[in-house]
């Protein structure tokens, strides 16, 4: 009964979405405010309907209702409750429901925070989001219904893939989808502006905070996924350029470009057409990412084709969304003015160059991800495109972008002078060069990549300091603390996010340059030394989990005779699918991780063991977190608050700063 209610709620939601996607847009076109007024209630109604459906599926999982095909396929009676609930998004159908649910959450948020928007604008935004929702609901109801019954019911479920039975599964997909789907708001703003023909600074101002919030979620989502892969897969890597990862990285790159392009549109009125295109691109890549990961096309092109209905739907949906919005773009964009002019050397110029680099990098990732699929589909042979390809293509593309990141915020809008800029950054350049050359030598090893990493990280941080010093000179009065506090939050947010990149770069550089690894055979009581730490193996014992049995090893780690950590890596056998998983044990620290993973049992109770010492690896995710914090700080800036919530303006210097 409950699943039927969920199914019915989805059907109702589709009807509401159809209304929301058509009438308000039509109303906005003919100026009928009664039709336009439908948008908000329809969006809220749709939210509650999809919430109901989501709740019903959650109930089916919680109550182990194996008469629902999807529940039987992705869970098991022994699976703990929190993983049963996370199993909602454990496969294709439920992921689509999560996607739609999050879309309605964003819609609901738009209805809450859009009272200051012109009615036509708001109706168009919600209308476009409604249309996207129509696509997803139609997809679910026609070919991937999560509520489909299995009659007769299964006695036992097939279980969630053991790889996914992890706290990462509870957090990572919702965060990632908050990011993916969040770009639908930017997309809807852009299409609404195209439809209405008013691409102005106000449009950019409104859509900026939405885009930044989505970007923050996506950043955190990707970081969580990467951290999860790091500890769960058991071989200590944190990014594999796997198609699944690339699928989330492409919208992030495009979204990053969008955030920066929006800044120019907001402050200078420029790049309008480009911003719209980026908004379309970011969302299209989000859609592509969702489908790439969830359609099975990555495991095999042929698996994708075995269910031609789904594949056909996905391809036509992508074609309609991307093609439709590009057509609208081609039709409307030429009417949009150019915006303000600027010299090649100016903040706009640097931002545009950065945008180009980010988009080219996105293109490169897209090419590398889809290329093997195309070759395979065309029967031109099977190839693998992996880390060696992406490393050698991506690094040269992104390096100049990181360089520009330092100098961009220092350049004036409209027109900057190279000699003046050079003078202002000479300290930063000097310090960065010295660090780049000196630090690797101090650390005991020099390679060009090490130097490059330190150079870029240092450059970003030191130019940020230069920028703060210069900004302070413009703020009058007060002590250093009050003057710092008077700089706008958006400015601090930007610097913080940039420094997050620097922290990330340090992490990557240190791990790539200085990690040590040992693949050893360890018997009871054997010791091995990695990165100055001594690991002693104290044998294994058998343990039982809720739905697995495991062999757990004990490792004593010490340094200079002092005990540092006790680590318990496991080798688990999940009973439902009889699948073996490696559960690494990690001692985390600010400057290093110690990582142990059990390999295979050898003769005489010995084991093959992998030991890693990973310096600064946590800086990689710490950097991502700092980036997201920077985004959050920027969104909290007063310029995004509706006028009535703002405090009265006290410091005229702020206005001047904001214009800089």
């Amino acid at each position: 009964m409950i699943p039927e209610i969920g199914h019915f709620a989805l059907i109702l939601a589709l009807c509401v979405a159809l209304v929301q996607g058509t009438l308000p847009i039509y109303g906005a076109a003919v100026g009928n405010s009664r039709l336009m007024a439908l948008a908000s209630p329809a969006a809220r109604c749709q939210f509650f309907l999809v919430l109901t459906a989501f709740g019903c599926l959650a109930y089916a999982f919680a109550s182990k209702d194996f008469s629902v095909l999807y529940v039987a396929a992705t869970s098991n009676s022994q699976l703990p409750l929190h993983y049963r609930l996370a199993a909602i998004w454990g496969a294709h159908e439920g992921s689509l429901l999560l996607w739609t649910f999050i879309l309605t959450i964003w819609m609901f948020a738009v209805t809450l925070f859009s009272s200051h928007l012109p009615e036509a604008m708001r109706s168009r935004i919600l209308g476009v989001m409604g249309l996207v929702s129509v696509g997803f609901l139609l997809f679910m109801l026609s070919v991937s219904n999560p509520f489909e019954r299995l009659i007769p019911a299964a006695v036992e479920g097939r279980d969630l893939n053991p790889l996914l039975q992890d706290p990462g599964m509870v957090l990572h997909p919702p965060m990632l989808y908050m990011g993916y789907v969040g770009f639908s708001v930017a997309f809807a703003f852009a299409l609404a502006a195209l439809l209405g023909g008013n691409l102005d600074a106000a449009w950019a101002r409104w859509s900026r905070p939405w885009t930044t919030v989505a970007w923050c979620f996506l950043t955190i989502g990707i970081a969580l996924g990467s951290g999860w892969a790091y500890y769960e897969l058991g071989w200590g890597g944190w990014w594999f350029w796997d198609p699944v990862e690339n699928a989330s990285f492409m919208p992030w790159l495009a979204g990053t470009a969008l955030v920066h392009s929006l800044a120019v549109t907001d402050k200078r009125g420029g790049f309008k057409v480009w911003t719209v295109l980026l908004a379309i691109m970011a969302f299209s890549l989000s859609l592509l990412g969702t489908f790439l990961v969830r359609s099975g096309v990555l495991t095999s092109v042929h698996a994708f084709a075995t269910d031609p209905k789904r594949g056909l739907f996905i391809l036509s949906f992508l074609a309609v969304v991307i093609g439709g919005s590009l057509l609208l773009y081609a039709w409307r964009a030429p009417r949009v003015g150019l915006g303000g002019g600027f010299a090649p050397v100016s903040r706009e110029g640097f931002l545009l160059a950065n945008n180009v680099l980010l988009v080219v990098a996105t293109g490169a990732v897209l090419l590398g991800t889809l290329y093997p699929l195309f070759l395979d589909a065309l029967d031109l042979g099977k190839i693998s495109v992996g880390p060696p390809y992406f490393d050698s293509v991506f690094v040269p593309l992104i390096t100049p972008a990181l360089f520009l990141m330092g100098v961009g915020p220092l350049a004036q809008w409209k027109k900057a002078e190279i000699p003046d800029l050079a003078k202002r950054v000479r300290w930063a350049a000097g310090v960065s060069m010295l660090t780049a050359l000196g630090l690797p030598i101090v650390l005991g090893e020099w390679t060009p990549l090490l130097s490059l990493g330190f150079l870029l990280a240092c450059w970003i941080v030191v130019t940020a300091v230069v920028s703060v010093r210069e900004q302070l000179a413009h703020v009058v009065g007060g002590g250093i603390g009050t003057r710092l506090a008077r700089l706008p939050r958006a400015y601090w947010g930007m610097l913080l996010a940039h420094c997050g990149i620097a922290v990330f770069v340090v992490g990557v550089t240190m791990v790539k340059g200085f990690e040590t690894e040992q693949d050893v055979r360890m018997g009871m009581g054997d010791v091995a030394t990695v990165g100055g730490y001594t690991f002693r193996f104290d044998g294994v014992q058998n343990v039982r989990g809720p739905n697995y049995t495991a062999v757990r090893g004990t490792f004593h780690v010490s340094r200079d005779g002092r005990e540092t950590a006790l680590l318990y890596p496991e080798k688990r056998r999940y009973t439902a699918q009889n699948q073996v998983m490696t559960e690494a044990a990690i001692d985390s620290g600010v400057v290093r991780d110690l990582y142990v993973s059990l390999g295979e049992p050898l003769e005489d109770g010995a084991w093959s063991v992998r030991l890693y010492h990973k310096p600064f690896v946590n800086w990689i995710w710490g950097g991502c977190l700092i980036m997201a914090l920077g985004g959050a700080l920027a969104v909290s800036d007063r310029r995004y608050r509706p006028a009535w919530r703002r405090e009265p303006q006290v410091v005229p210097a702020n206005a001047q700063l904001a214009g800089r």
Partner: protein
Amino acid sequence: MNWLFFLLLLVAGSAWAGEAKPMGDDPAVEARLKQLAGELRCLVCQNQTLADSNAPLAEDLRREVREMIAKNMSDREIIDFLVSRYGDFVLYRPPLKTTTVLLWAGPFVLLIGGGVALAVTLRRRQRVIVENAVITDEEHRRVERLLSPGVKES
């Protein structure tokens, strides 16, 4: 005195516990193996390099590569041998051939295209710079009006 005791303990400890043996015998061979295996695909895994995989087949293949290294074969010869047996699929760095030209040239073609587009835009914008102001006062007023509450404008 304490440290002496400590040292004794340490020595005693290590005498009781053996130093763990590396899985391979020769560190130089292992280093080369690690480098090679990082560019090779584990054929039975979803998407894993040979270096990372714990699958039995990967273990076998690593042993074979180790033997080839020990036989003093060059990286080129080892890779050629593996490709002849498993095809290009085993390489994570796709070889440059007619079907992969686009893959390798693509990013740089994109970069050049982007660079040209950028240059054209910048030149065009530079001409605009003299002609009109960036955002007019009227536009500024409109933004302020729109961002203030209670304004419904279509």
